C-alpha cells in the first residue's frame, strides 16, 4: 500500500527532498495508518468472506483500470466513456451469444476495441483533447444504443450456449477474479516488456520528444485506446454474464472507479510513469475502502465522497510535487 508515495511524476531531477515530497510522504503514511486502523476496528473486515468480496469487487474495476493505465501512461489523460462502453459491450455479448460462445466473445472484444480504438485514432491523429473526445463518444454510444435497443434490456437468446460459468465461482473463487489476474499479468508484461509498451512510456513522458524521435504517435495512441477497448469488452462480457441481461445503466460508477484505481495506484496523471501492478493495487485499495464504508454502515454517496476526496488529493499532490503547481 505504499504505492501512493511513489506516484509523483518526476519531471525534473531534484536531488534534495523538498517540502512537497515530505508532504506527500506524510499524507501517505497518514492514509495507510487510517486505513489499517479502520480495518482493524471494523468487525468482519478480516474474514475470508469479506476479503473475497473485496477481491471480487476489485475485479471488474481492475480489468478496466488496467486498460486505462495504458491511456494515462501514454499521456492522453483518461477515457470518460468506458462505463457506457462496458454496458454496450454487455448488451453486445448477450445479443451475440446467438452465434455461439466463442463467437460472442470475439465479436464483443472486436466491438469494444473498435469503438474505443476509433476514439484513440481521432485523438492521436488530430491531437484533439481526449477528455472531450471520449465524453462526446460516450454520449454518441448512449444515443445509438438506446435507439437500436429501443430502450429495453437485452436478454440472452433462448437455448443459447451456457455462459453461467463466467459469473460463477471456480474452486470457490469467482470467475472474474481469475480473469482480473490474467489481465493484470498479460497487461503488465506487455506494458513493461514490449516495444509498444516502451514507446508508450516514452511518448507519455514527452510527446514533443517522441515526435522528434520519430515514434509513431498516431499508432501508439490508437494502440493504447485499443488495449483499453479490449479490457472494457472483457469487463462487459463478465457484467452481461452476471446480470443475465444488458441495460445501459448497468455499469454505474465504473468510469470513476477505474480512474480512481489508476491514480490511487500511483500512475502519474501527466503520463510517462506508472505500471499495471500499481493499478492492480489501486483497484484493491479502492474496493477495500468501499467495503470498509459499507461494513460501517455508510451509504453509497458517502463512499463516492470519500473516493472523490482521495482522488482529488492525489491529483493535486502529484502536481504540487512535480513542481508544476508552483508556476504562479
Amino acid at each position, binding site marked *: 500500500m505504499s504505492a501512493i508515495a511513489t506516484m509523483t*511524476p*518526476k*519531471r*525534473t*531531477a531534484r*536531488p534534495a527532498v523538498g517540502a512537497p515530497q515530505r508532504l506527500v510522504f506524510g499524507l501517505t503514511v497518514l492514509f495507510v495508518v487510517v486505513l489499517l486502523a479502520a480495518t482493524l476496528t471494523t468487525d468482519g473486515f478480516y474474514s475470508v468472506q469479506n476479503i473475497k468480496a473485496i477481491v471480487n469487487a476489485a475485479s471488474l474495476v481492475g480489468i478496466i483500470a488496467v486498460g486505462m493505465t495504458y491511456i494515462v501512461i501514454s499521456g492522453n489523460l483518461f477515457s470518460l466513456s468506458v462505463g457506457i462502453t462496458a454496458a454496450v459491450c454487455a448488451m453486445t455479448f448477450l445479443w451475440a451469444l446467438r452465434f455461439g460462445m466463442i463467437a460472442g466473445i470475439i465479436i464483443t472484444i472486436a466491438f469494444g476495441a473498435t469503438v474505443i480504438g476509433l476514439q484513440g485514432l481521432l485523438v492521436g491523429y488530430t491531437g484533439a483533447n481526449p477528455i472531450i473526445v471520449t465524453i462526446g463518444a460516450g454520449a454518441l454510444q448512449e444515443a445509438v444504443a438506446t435507439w437500436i435497443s429501443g430502450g429495453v434490456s437485452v436478454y440472452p437468446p433462448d437455448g443459447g450456449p451456457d455462459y453461467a460459468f463466467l459469473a460463477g465461482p471456480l474452486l470457490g473463487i469467482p470467475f472474474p477474479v481469475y480473469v482480473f489476474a490474467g489481465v493484470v499479468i498479460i497487461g503488465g508484461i506487455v506494458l513493461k*516488456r*514490449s*516495444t*509498444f509498451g*516502451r*514507446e508508450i*512510456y*516514452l511518448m507519455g*513522458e*514527452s510527446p*514533443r*520528444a*517522441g*515526435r*522528434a*524521435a*520519430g*515514434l*509513431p*504517435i498516431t499508432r501508439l495512441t490508437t494502440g493504447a485506446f485499443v488495449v483499453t477497448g479490449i479490457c472494457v469488452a472483457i469487463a462487459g462480457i463478465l457484467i452481461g454474464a452476471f446480470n443475465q441481461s444488458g441495460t445501459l445503466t448497468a455499469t454505474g460508477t465504473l468510469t470513476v472507479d477505474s480512474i480512481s484505481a489508476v491514480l490511487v495506484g500511483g500512475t502519474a496523471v501527466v503520463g*510517462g*510513469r506508472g505500471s499495471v501492478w500499481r493499478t492492480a493495487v489501486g483497484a484493491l485499495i479502492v474496493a477495500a475502502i468501499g467495503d470498509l464504508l459499507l461494513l460501517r454502515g455508510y451509504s453509497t454517496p458517502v463512499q463516492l465522497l470519500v473516493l472523490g476526496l482521495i482522488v482529488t488529493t492525489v491529483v493535486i499532490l502529484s502536481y504540487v510535487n512535480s513542481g508544476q503547481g508552483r508556476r504562479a
Partner: protein
Amino acid sequence: MPEPMRLEMREITKTYGNLRAVDAVSFDLAPGEVHALLGHNGAGKSTLVKILSGVVHPDSGQVLIDGVEVSPRNPRHAQELGVALVDQELSLVTVLTVEENLLLGSLRRSTGNSGSTSPEALRALLDDLGLSHVKLSAPTGNLPIGEQQLVEIARALSRDARIIILDEPTATLSELEIAKVFAAVRGLAAQGKSVIYVSHRLGEVLTLCQRATVFRDGKLVGTRNVAELDRSGIVEMMLGHVPESGRQGLAEVPANPEVVTITGLSVPPRIQSFDLTITGGQIVGLAGQVGCGASEVLRALGGLIPEARGTVDISGSRLTLGSPGRVRAEGVFFAPNDRKEEGLFLSHSIADNLVATRLPRLSGGGFIRKSLQSLNVNRLLALTGISAERRGTEVGSLSGGNQQKVLIARGIEQESSRMLLFDEPARGVDVGGRADIHELIRGAVAQGNAVLFSSTELDEILDLADIIVTMFAGRIVSIRSRAEATAASILTDMTHGSEVMSA
C-alpha cells in the same frame, strides 16, 4: 553647457559565477542616434541590454539617462525611465487586437504620464510606422510577422520611450518587412529618439547606424563611426584572433557513401528552393546566425515541418517529408537543438534514451530483447565516455554536456541509418564536452552516413565541418571546403546582407 548624452553606461561589470559576462564596459548613446551593438554569441551584448532594461543588475558601474544616474530595478522600472526593449521573440498576444496589444501593460493610466492612449494617438503611431492599412481592431495574429514586429515597436513608442532597444529585429523577417522596420527606425531617429540596434547583420548596420560598438568575450573592443568602417573592418574587430583550429584536409571517404540530393526544398515562410548535395563520409555544416534558416532545413529533413516541400533523394530513394516516423523509416535521424523540450525523455534512464529510436531493431516478436538492448547500450556508453554503471540513471539528472552526449549518441551506430541531422549539436556545452560530441559525430560519418549539422558558432563550424555551407536569410551564401575556408570569410558570409540592404 553641452547637451548631455541620452544614455551613458560607465565601467559596467557583471559576473555570473566565474564568468565575466561584461567587464568594465562603457557605452554611450546620443539623442537621435542609431547605434549598433555587435559581437559574437556570448560577447556581452545581451547582458548589457538586460542591464539597461532592468532584467539583471550590474555588479558595478553607472547608468545615466539624460545626465541623471539611474539603476533600473526591473523591466517595469526601466520602462518608466524611458527604456523600451523590443525583443527578438515577439511578445504580442496574438488573439488580442492590435489596439489591445498596444495598451497591454501600459503604464500610462497608473502614472498619468503625458501623452494619451486615445485611439487617435495610437492610430497616429501606427501611421508613422507605415502601418496605415492596419486596423486597430485587427486581430494581431492575422498580421504578417514583420508587421507584428512593427506593432511591437509601436507599443514601445506608445510608452514614451526615449531609448528603444531592438534586439535582432530582422532575424525572422522578409526583405520587404525589413525595409519597413528600417523606415520606422529612421523615423524614430528623426524624432530625436535614440535606438540601440543589436544585430549580426553587418549590411544592416552599415546602412542604418551612425556608430557601432563591438564586444568580444565580455570586453569592449571599440566604438567607431560607421562611416569609417567597412565589412572587413567590423569582422576584424569582432574576430580578434580566432585560432585556426580544426581538421585540415578531408577524412577518407568510405566505400559506397550515401549521397543525398536536396532539390528545391521550400520551408515556409523563409526558405525557397534550397539545393544541396551531401556526400556521406563528409560532415557538412550549415553556418549562419539565428534566423538564417539552417535549423528549419534540418527540421524539414527530419520530417518535423508538415509544410515543407521539395525532393530529397538518399542514394536514389525518395524521402517523404512531413512525417518524422516515415523519415526515420528511411534511415534519417534528427537530433533537435532543444534537448530538454524536444530531445530527451528526461525522467527515463540513460539506457532508455539511448535506444529510444532503435527499439524495433532490438525487438523480436514485438518484445524487446534485453540482451540485444544491453549490448547496444554498453557500446554507446563506451563511445560517450559515460560510465556503464550509470545506465539506469535518470537522464534529467545528468549535466548538460552529458545529456547532450546521450542525445547525439542516440542517433549514431545504427545499421539502418543513412542520414544524420544535428541541430546545434553542442548547444550550451562546455569546451571539453564539445570535443567529445564532435568526436561522436566524426565517428558516425566514418561509416558512410551523410551528416548535416547546423551551428551559429564560428568555432564549432571550423572545428567540425568538412564542408561549410553559409546561410543568410534563408539562402545559401557560399559553399567551401574546410581547407579553403577562413574564419573571416565564413563570418563575413554568415553576416552577409549587402544586397538585401540596398536601401
